[in-house]
């Protein structure tokens, strides 16, 4: 009887320990999500027309800038993997948007930076057809952009 009681206690203790560990793990996994600043910008990402996407990100009075370096291939044989690299030399760069003008939904990505970051990003995007790749930069509250023409041999939206 005593033995059984003890084993019950120890089982309870073990269960409690497991629960605590599980809660701790859950908390550590959930922690980064709670830090997210804004909601995913559904209106901008769902926009099918370029002007609506630009309106959706809140950009206006966009000035052409040669201080945004945009590296993208002139010819992309595979539209499913188009490397895009952006470096902004505009002081106070806060956000960089990557847009593929003729994609079914033009807005591809938004990157919000703190001052602890170099205003640089490199990634790979999908392009449905040949079009301009457009990069919009927000710096000190103002908007700037640059574009590159990318020829796509095989579109990468269905694949």
């Amino acid at each position: 009887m005593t033995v059984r009681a003890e084993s019950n206690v120890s089982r309870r203790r073990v269960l409690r320990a497991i629960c605590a560990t599980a809660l701790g793990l859950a908390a550590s996994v959930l922690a980064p999500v709670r830090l997210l600043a804004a909601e995913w910008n559904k209106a901008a990402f769902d926009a099918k027309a370029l002007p609506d996407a630009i309106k959706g990100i809140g950009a206006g009075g966009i000035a052409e800038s040669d201080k945004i370096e945009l590296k993208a291939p002139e010819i992309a044989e595979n539209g499913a993997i188009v490397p895009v690299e952006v470096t902004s030399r505009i002081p106070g760069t806060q956000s960089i948007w990557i847009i593929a003008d003729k994609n079914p939904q033009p807005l591809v990505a938004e990157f919000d930076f703190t001052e602890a970051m170099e205003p640089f990003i490199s990634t790979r995007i999908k392009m449905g057809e040949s079009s301009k790749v457009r990069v919009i930069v927000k710096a000190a509250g103002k908007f700037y952009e640059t574009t590159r023409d990318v020829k796509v041999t095989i579109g990468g939206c269905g694949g």
Partner: protein
Amino acid sequence: MADQMRIRATLQGDVAEVKVLMSHPMETGLRKDPVSGDVVPLHFIQRVLATHNGKTVLDAQWSQAVSKNPYLNFRVRGARSGDKIAVSWEDNKGEKASIEATLN
């Protein structure tokens, strides 16, 4: 979880060069399954967050037009040996993954 992401973070002066590979189908919702002919539902990473010693430095929002198995390269200033760089993502189905690297 572990094989859902790979990270390489190297110190160049006081800048951390971070390269991340995420294992994700990034389905556009337009692709048809070659066997069944059914449309494969939209499934893509929507948010990516990077932290430096626990402090958010990069907050990204993505569409389904980021390539399958996304690659991301970014640079964090003011980094030192022993600092921790972590990257996490969450997709439109609420699935999550994260990975951390310590700078040498």
